[in-house]
């Protein structure tokens, strides 16, 4: 995964005092243990799907510490400035919506875990924004600048497929335009999806249009009734262990905009925008990727695959009998080190092509077992601890959402990874969050 790739436009950044301080903090964090893990998360969707609006809303929701979330997002000054500008344009009822995206942009954020010892930034996300027409315009597809973009999309760690809520609503009402959307407009997105093996999150945007009229379960059932969509899910499920999810998301929340008969969305300005569930696709990236990487390694077979399966079985058994605590705090680490020694990374990387996150995946399941064995408040003193904590908290948030909205799981899910499922539901510190959109 993560091949060498072309970098796209990034917001221009003038170095200033604030940037120097931020860079210094990150460097210090790295010295304190572990390294920053980068996850490439990209959105697929034709023009108007809401790629830019989703990212601006996500950033706005997460750039402030929220009591119900274990992290907040940080970016460089100019990225923050541009995304805030876009969001302000969205939120201002007197302004038009932002213009359709014309340029390929690469955004980068870090997930920052606040602790008494300082802020740690264990995870970096990169996100590509681009004109959606490149996925539907055959001439654009031939362009030498677009090919590397498609390559980046295909090799993402996780893909978000943005489904226009308006079209999903039309599908639910059995209107022809809804089926046409699935059959024609998002075909290219689905083709890229077909060629990728990573976790996939279908994001139904503009959920405020459906809220109160349709449930996520109805949207799930209607999508699965469509033969192309159902076949794609079935094919992905048989090809990979990657989870496939369905999230209802609204970048502005209910009552902010209204659908006009012409199809345009008009701001009514009755409420201040209140994004709903925008963080869920991002939150699920880390646990879904780590579980997927682990299961892929198991399924790769051979000595390494068997070793991975055995480790997971051992950890699950240890949890059940409570032996892990007696083994001592370093038991998991010892098992991991022994495993990596026995099966050098390079030997199996060539076979399964999921190298960047495998060590993290192993550590993650050990961490889950440790949490099950002794759920208690954890001390975060370095980047490594911060990543463990973040992975666990993300798993808990995801588990709570799965429980509230079983229809959000199209394939895989935490049920396929019992250790994660149980760890998420174990006693211990857990942050409350808003309920799902209904």
């Amino acid at each position, binding site marked *: 995964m993560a091949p060498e790739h072309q970098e796209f436009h990034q917001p221009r950044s003038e170095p200033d005092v604030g940037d120097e301080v931020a860079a210094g903090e990150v460097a210090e964090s790295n010295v304190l243990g572990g390294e920053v893990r980068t996850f490439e998360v990209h959105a697929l969707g034709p023009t108007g799907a809401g790629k830019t609006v989703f990212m601006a809303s996500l950033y706005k929701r997460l750039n402030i510490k929220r009591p119900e979330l274990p992290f907040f997002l940080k970016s460089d000054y100019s990225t923050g400035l541009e995304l805030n500008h876009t969001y302000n344009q969205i939120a201002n009822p007197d302004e038009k919506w932002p213009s359709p995206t014309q340029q390929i942009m690469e955004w980068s954020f870090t997930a920052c875990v606040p602790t008494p010892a300082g802020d740690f930034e264990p995870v970096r996300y990169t996100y590509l924004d681009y004109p959606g027409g490149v996925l539907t315009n055959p*001439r*654009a597809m031939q362009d030498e600048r677009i090919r590397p973009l498609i390559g980046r999309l295909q090799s993402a760690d996780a893909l978000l497929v943005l489904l226009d809520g308006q079209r999903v609503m039309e599908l639910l009402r059995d209107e022809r335009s809804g089926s046409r959307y699935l059959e024609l407009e998002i075909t290219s997105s689905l083709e890229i999806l077909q060629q990728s093996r990573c976790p996939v999150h279908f994001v139904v945007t503009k959920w405020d249009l459906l809220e109160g009229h349709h449930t996520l379960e109805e949207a799930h059932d209607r999508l699965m009734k469509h033969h192309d969509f159902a076949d794609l899910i079935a094919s992905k499920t048989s090809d990979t262990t990657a989870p496939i999810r369905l999230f209802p998301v609204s970048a502005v929340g209910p009552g902010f905009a209204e659908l006009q008969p012409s199809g345009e969305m008009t701001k009514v300005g009755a409420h201040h925008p209140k994004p709903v569930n925008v963080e869920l696709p991002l939150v699920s990236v880390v646990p879904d990727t780590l579980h997927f990487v682990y299961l892929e390694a198991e399924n790769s077979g051979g000595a390494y695959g068997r070793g991975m399966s055995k480790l997971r079985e051992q950890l699950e058994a240890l949890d059940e009998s409570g032996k892990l605590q007696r083994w001592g705090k370093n038991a998991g680490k010892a098992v991991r080190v022994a495993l990596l020694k026995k099966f050098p990374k390079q030997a199996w990387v060539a076979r399964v092509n999921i190298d960047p996150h495998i060590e993290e995946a192993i550590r993650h399941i050990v961490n889950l077992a440790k949490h099950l064995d002794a759920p208690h408040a954890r001390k975060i003193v370095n980047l490594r601890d911060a990543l463990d904590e973040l992975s666990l908290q993300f798993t808990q948030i995801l588990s709570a959402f799965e429980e509230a909205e079983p229809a959000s799981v199209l394939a895989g899910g935490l049920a396929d990874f019992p250790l994660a499922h149980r760890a998420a539901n174990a006693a211990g510190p857990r942050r409350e969050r808003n309920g799902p959109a209904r």
Partner: protein
Amino acid sequence: VSTEAQAWPFIVARNATLDWRPILAPPFLIDAHADYLLVTETSGPGPELTKPSVTVVKSARAGTITIVYSSIPATTELLGRQPAEPLLDHFGRPLHVVEGLVLRGDHRALPSGLQPTLDRVRTETLRLLTAFWNEEDEAAPPAPSQPIPISTAAQRTAAPAPPHDEQQGPKRTGRMALPLLLVVVVALGAAVWWWWSARTA
């Protein structure tokens, strides 16, 4: 010393449903399937009137090119409809049109006097945008543009169709040159004859 160069007009636009694309482009970019770079390299602040910008792009397929471009808000006026109202896409987002010129090679030290040539692209916008506004074919190629000669060093356009009065200027000068020359030759001959007559007398 001025250097003559060719500038090909281009237009980038989108309509209510089709996303950004060139609707007019130099034939050499169309033939090389490199015309889409006109979209990604001319991004601006949105539906605002912008001053001309210059960017030099290295394309593996089309070589080095220089793009001079500016944006104008897309309004119904460009479709020949009054009063002018903003054109929106299917989702209610305001649109703009990018107009510009493409030159082969690196001309980053372009003259500032290109505005009249850039203004001529507007004629093409008015000609092409109405048809494009109703276009539904994703695969429709852009129309090929005709080159306009410009002078890149003298900082002025060598307009191929200058106003009528300017066209007449150089021709009048050419017609007057021959009689003047004849007068000078006759006068010179008369002076020589007068000097020779005076000397022999």
